[in-house]
């Protein structure tokens, strides 16, 4: 499926003009700029230059799997420990921590699916200036330069990536606060202890003296350290009325990366911005700090609900990625030596041959934790996806039904309302799979409960939906009403599972229920308890067709700084500052685990989350939060989901229709037509907006929406196979064109054209378009320009029924679109659609290929077993010529197939070949 929404640009522009008059936007004053975030301001004040860090080559230790080396900051003599690993699959991991931190610094757990397997590193050469290591079998090398410290990754004579080449490595070491009594006492005790130690150790170890000199705790160096000036915001910081006590003082880290030859970088969601990242020199850096941003603004680097600290760099030769594993507040600066150049300037450079190599420089700044960065070296986009997947896992394989259409609203008022909306879909013959209940379904925003009047008999309601093979999602947010009559609250409190404020009491904030506390999802025992709450006997009124939605898990705290939690709250040994961006990740993890457990480990969960982090793809779906009913928001949903897909989170969607405000009918229809081709397809609306179920806009628009939803349903087999593929490989489902055409520079920032030597077929009219041209596709309200690429085979189920489950046993129609070589390939994946049995090899996976006038189905998983009642009812071959005879061979039998040939469109339709979808077969055109 190719890019299509770009065609709406003229419409978008028009609408924008109308809307400019409105003043409706985020209250920016609620959120920090880099200047208002003390560590960002401090770090950003440092300009590129000679790095104070020096590699102490004599401290180098190289084992088979890892290299360690100390770095010293010549200004304050603080030492760092550099660890370098070569990981399997062309990944290099660089870890930098304080050699001897005052107390441990936070290292992000649970995001990596395992300790990444390493590959041997070997020393190629070494002298006093540096070390050269070989990275695996390729001609890749790492050069560690000693003075100043920098790290270059080379392939042949090309530099792929340089670290600290601009000297922006900083590591604010943990320190005692100097003006406090305790500091003085402790430092005195420490020096006494050091003296004692020296006496004893010098007797025991003659080498100790020598080592001592290099020790950062050494007295002489400490003196120098004391001279460092204390800046504002190091030990305390206030924003608006909120103060951050910062008991641990400054702890920021920063590192720069240079990417020679790179002009295009992508990723680091979530931002409401273009797919291609912009340079940030003239404004704020991109910010990664999970926040509940009310009425977010488009096209700026402000933080949103989720954070995935992964950036991809791409040029015609290579794709690489940087994964900065840090869960604290993070800012990313991007600069480029070509950013200011016009196209003409670039061409001039090219003609004159005098161009400096284009280069993009990136700088990451985090408030605390350590530097733990994975350099994913490609070289292809797909390699980077698989490299990242090997670290954080792939998209969870969702239940098939969750790929259908979801009908949501804040709120469906009561059971009767749910029933009548459900009936409305049948009356208007529009399929849907899930109806959703927002916060109002609960008893006073106490999650896991039901409003006793409006949802008095939830099981009855769920049974009614189940009778139609449909499902429901009920919201469960992580803020818990402080109410001694509420079981969940009492249990969490008595178990001590709440996040603590800096004074040790349960942290309380303000959210939907009023005063609320926040479970500490960083505790495994808390998560286990939370998961157990989803058991059918715990969660009253729940049934197996009820799933979960985690909202507000940034976490959102209405009266907190930047509408989130105070950074000095405490999670066991860690401050919220260290872990913030992980909160939503853990909430979804625990919830998904709960849904798995309630079924005894049999059923796949479905959990939607608003906040996320690297690795969240393993637990379900995300959506782009509280957008608005505006054309620009429809447009931004595409780059937002594309960006998420690039960093592993494929199951992405935006609220169809827009959450805030009320869409015009045209916008609503267009949004359905767009949403039908995005992975997560859910309509949602704010409480204060008028109703907008699909049939409320007159029969014509009902028909348009029905058609868009039906198109989605016919393509469900393809979506499902795509999700299976994403689950297996980590490749995105919705992808920008450059992923498919990495060598075609026109696709790199392609938003309104694509240039590809391919054939494309309009999936509705079968009209054929040749590639390598700019096309303007005229549209009407009823058309969605969607193309099937020549060379692909797409299985569809064209008998669209009430819900996806109703279509389970339906036959397939294969759409074979021939390319210029008259070949095509595709896959068909079938399983039970909802259990983990596919992990036990209970599925059908076929390769469908067309070549030399033979279409065949070959088993891709001979060791897998599954039987299906589905059969192939039709084969449509686009770009075909007329055969004289068509023969089907299956199970050793030959039979003649009837066919119909449309000469005007070159479409050959094979009538009712009838073979089972899981069988081996070939069809020969003669």
């Amino acid at each position: 499926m190719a890019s299509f929404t770009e065609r709406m640009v003229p419409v978008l522009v028009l609408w924008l003009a109308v809307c400019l008059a409105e003043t409706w936007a985020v209250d920016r004053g609620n959120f920090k700029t880099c200047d208002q975030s003390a560590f960002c301001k401090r770090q950003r004040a440092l300009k590129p230059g000679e790095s104070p860090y020096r590699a102490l080559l004599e401290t180098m230790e190289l084992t088979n799997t890892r290299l360690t080396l100390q770095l010293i900051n010549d200004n304050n003599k603080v030492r760092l420990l550099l660890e370098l690993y070569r990981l399997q699959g062309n990944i290099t991991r660089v870890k930098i921590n304080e050699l001897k931190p005052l107390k441990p610094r936070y290292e992000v757990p649970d995001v990596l699916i395992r300790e990444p397997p390493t590959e041997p590193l070997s020393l190629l050469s070494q002298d006093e200036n540096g070390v050269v290591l070989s990275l695996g079998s390729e001609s890749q090398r790492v050069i560690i330069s000693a003075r100043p410290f920098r790290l270059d990754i080379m392939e042949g004579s090309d530099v792929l990536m340089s670290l600290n080449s601009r000297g922006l490595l900083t590591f604010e070491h943990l320190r005692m606060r100097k003006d406090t009594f305790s500091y003085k006492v402790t430092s005195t005790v420490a020096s006494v202890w050091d003296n004692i130690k020296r006496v004893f150790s010098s007797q025991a170890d003659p080498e100790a003296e020598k080592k001592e000199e290099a020790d950062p705790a050494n007295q002489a160096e400490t003196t120098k350290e004391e001279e460092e000036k204390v800046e504002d915001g190091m030990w305390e910081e206030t924003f608006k009325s909120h103060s951050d006590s910062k008991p641990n003082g400054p702890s920021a880290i920063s590192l720069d990366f240079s990417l020679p030859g790179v002009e295009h970088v992508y990723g680091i969601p979530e931002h409401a911005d273009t797919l291609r990242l912009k340079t940030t020199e003239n404004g704020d850096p991109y910010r990664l700090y999970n926040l509940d941003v009310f009425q977010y603004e488009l096209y700026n680097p402000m933080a949103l609900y989720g954070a995935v600290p992964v950036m991809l760099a791409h040029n015609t030769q290579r794709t690489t990625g940087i994964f900065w594993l840090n869960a604290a507040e993070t800012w990313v600066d991007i600069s480029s030596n070509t950013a200011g150049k016009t196209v003409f300037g670039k061409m001039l450079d090219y003609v004159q041959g005098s161009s400096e190599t284009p280069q993009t420089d990136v700088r990451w700044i985090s408030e605390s934790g350590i530097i733990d960065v994975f350099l994913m070296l490609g070289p292809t986009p797909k390699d980077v996806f698989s490299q990242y997947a090997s670290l954080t896992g792939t998209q969870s394989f969702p239940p098939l039904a969750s790929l259908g259409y979801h009908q949501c609203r804040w709120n469906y008022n009561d059971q009767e309302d749910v029933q009548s909306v459900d009936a409305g879909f049948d009356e208007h013959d529009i399929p849907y799979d899930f109806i959703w209940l927002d916060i109002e379904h609960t008893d006073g925003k106490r999650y896991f409960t039901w409003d006793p009047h409006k949802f008095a008999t939830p099981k009855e309601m769920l049974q009614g939906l189940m009778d139609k093979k449909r499902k429901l999602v009920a919201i469960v947010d992580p803020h818990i009403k402080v109410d001694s009559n509420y079981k969940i609250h009492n249990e969490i409190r008595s178990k001590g599972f709440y996040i603590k404020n800096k004074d040790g009491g349960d942290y309380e904030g303000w959210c939907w229920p009023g005063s609320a506390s926040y479970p500490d999802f960083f505790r495994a025992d808390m998560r286990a308890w939370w998961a157990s709450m989803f058991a059918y006997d715990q969660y009253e009124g729940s049934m197996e067709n009820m799933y979960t939605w985690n909202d507000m898990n940034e976490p959102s705290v209405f009266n907190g700084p930047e509408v989130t939690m105070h950074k000095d709250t405490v999670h066991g040994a860690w401050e919220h500052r260290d872990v913030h961006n992980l909160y939503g990740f853990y909430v979804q993890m625990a919830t998904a685990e709960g849904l798995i457990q309630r079924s005894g480990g049999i059923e796949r969960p479905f959990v939607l989350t608003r906040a996320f982090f690297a690795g969240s793809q393993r637990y379900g779906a995300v959506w782009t939060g509280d957008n608005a009913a505006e054309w620009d928001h429809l447009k931004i949903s595409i780059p937002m989901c594309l960006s998420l897909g690039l960093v592993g989170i494929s199951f992405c969607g935006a609220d169809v229709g827009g959450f805030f405000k009320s869409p015009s009918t045209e916008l609503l229809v267009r949004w359905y037509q767009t949403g039908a081709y995005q992975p997560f397809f859910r309509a949602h609306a704010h409480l204060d907006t008028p109703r907008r179920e699909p049939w409320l806009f007159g029969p014509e628009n009902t028909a348009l929406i029905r058609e868009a939803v039906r198109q989605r349903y016919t393509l469900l087999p393809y979506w499902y196979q795509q999700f299976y593929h994403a689950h297996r490989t980590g490749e995105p489902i919705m992808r920008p064109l450059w992923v498919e055409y990495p060598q075609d520079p026109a696709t790199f920032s392609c938003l309104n054209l694509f240039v590809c030597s391919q054939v494309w077929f309009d999936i509705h009219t079968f009209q054929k378009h040749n590639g390598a041209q700019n096309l303007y596709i005229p549209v009407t309200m009823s058309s969605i320009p969607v193309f099937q690429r020549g060379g692909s085979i797409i299985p569809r189920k064209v008998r669209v029924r009430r819900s996806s489950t109703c279509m389970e046993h339906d036959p397939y129609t294969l759409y074979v679109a021939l390319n210029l070589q008259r070949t095509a390939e595709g896959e068909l994946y079938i399983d039970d659609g909802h259990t983990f049995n596919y992990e036990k090899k209970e599925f059908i996976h076929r390769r469908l290929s067309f070549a030399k006038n033979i279409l065949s189905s070959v088993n891709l998983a001979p060791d897998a077993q599954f039987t299906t009642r589905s059969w192939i009812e039709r084969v449509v071959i686009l770009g075909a010529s007329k055969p004289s005879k068509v023969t089907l061979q299956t199970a050793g039998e030959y039979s003649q197939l009837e066919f119909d040939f449309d000469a005007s469109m070159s479409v050959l339709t094979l009538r009712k070949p009838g073979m089972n979808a899981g069988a081996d077969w070939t069809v020969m055109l003669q």
Partner: protein
Amino acid sequence: MRHVTACFRKRKHGEFKCLSRSFKQVLAGFYETGRREFTVLDSDMRFQVIVAAVFWSGFVESRKVRGISSSYKRFYKERKSFLCIDGSKIIPFEQVNDDYCDCEDGSDEPGTSACPRGRFYCTNLGFRPHYIPSSRVNDGICDCCDASDEYNSPAHCQNTCWNLGQKERAYVEGQMRTLDEGLRLKQQLIEEGVLLWREKQAQLRELQQVAEDLQIKLEEHRRRKHEAERLKEQTLKALEAGDSGKGRILMRSCCNPYSITVDEVKTKVVLVHDEERLLSEDEALGLLGGGHQIDLTKFRRTLWDVLTRGDSVKVRSISLHFQHPPRCFFAAEWEATNLKKVEEAYETVNMEISDLRKKLAIDYGTDWEFLFLNSQCYKLKVYEYIYTLCPFNQVTQKNTAGTEVSLGTWGMWAGTPKNQYSQMVYENGEPCWQGGSRTTTVTLTCGTETALRSVKEPSKCQYIMDFQTPVACQPVLKQRGIHSEL
């Protein structure tokens, strides 16, 4: 109903008969003899017409074509080939219901789910026959009560038509009874309405008469007040002119507005039982409480008190003794007060008139049948709120804390063009948080009682109410029987 083709092929003569589009109800009766008769009823049920199409009873159904109504059977007679009903294509007859869609219009697959635009006919013997979309055939969900749609599915569908039919018949009977009773009550209410209308009209006329009278009175009082003021001014002028003799006389005769003399009492007050006799000095003095001249305050406590009791003395009749009444300031004030009273009365009456006129200007239905709702209010408690509908006036919502919020005031009738009295709109209620104001749409349905049945708020600040009343009963309902769908 809308699926019924308007044309029937009359086999015997090979001709077509088309039904006029004005026929709104086409009901098919089934006769087990193999004969098929099509009964066409017009919307008013005034007559029945047997149109066409008698099929030979000798016609043999050698193969059951699933999913079609008897009226369509003629398209599916077994021959070598089948013509798609839209005429677009001819296919071999074996391809009818072979689970592959050949015809654009879906007509070759009436009994399977193969065609996206197809439909399946549930015969539903004992209940209502109806069409379902082909996509509901064998989808594992029982749609036809005769279970005919799930002939190849794991769903275990029971034939529930008889039960449903029973229920439906009971329901329809109930509805009919309700309708009958409702219509009867409506007739009463119409009669009452007419009376009420007349009464209101009479009331209006009365009020208008009162208003006219008051108008006259008003003019008289204005004139008097004017006169009194004129005299007052004259007096004042005279006083100011310094004509002391005349002034003294005026003073003595009456014109100290702040005191009353014994002489004045003697001339103006008489005994109740002997009007002709002048009071003696002593009697007058007695009435004034012993002084020759008293001020107004004292007067109120003495003479006024006696006068108002009215059992011994009274003021001498004006016509006789006030023919040339003292033109004093007191009189001017008196007249002003009187005028004000009359003016107020006049205003009140006029307001009543305009209120009544406004009420009477509302459309209460062709027979004033909705008039009785005026000045009534109906309440309903839904969850934590009490809703009050006062028809033609306003809608309010009261929460448990007792705070009342307006959900709109009477706006207009907003029903269908066919029956505009089926819906009311109340608008401009309390403003909403996100702009706009609360509105309520009230749907009127037929029932034997007048009551508010349900209140919902499907979208914020948009309320819908179901209001039952006999006056919403429409005779046309009665003609929709069990056989409302072919």
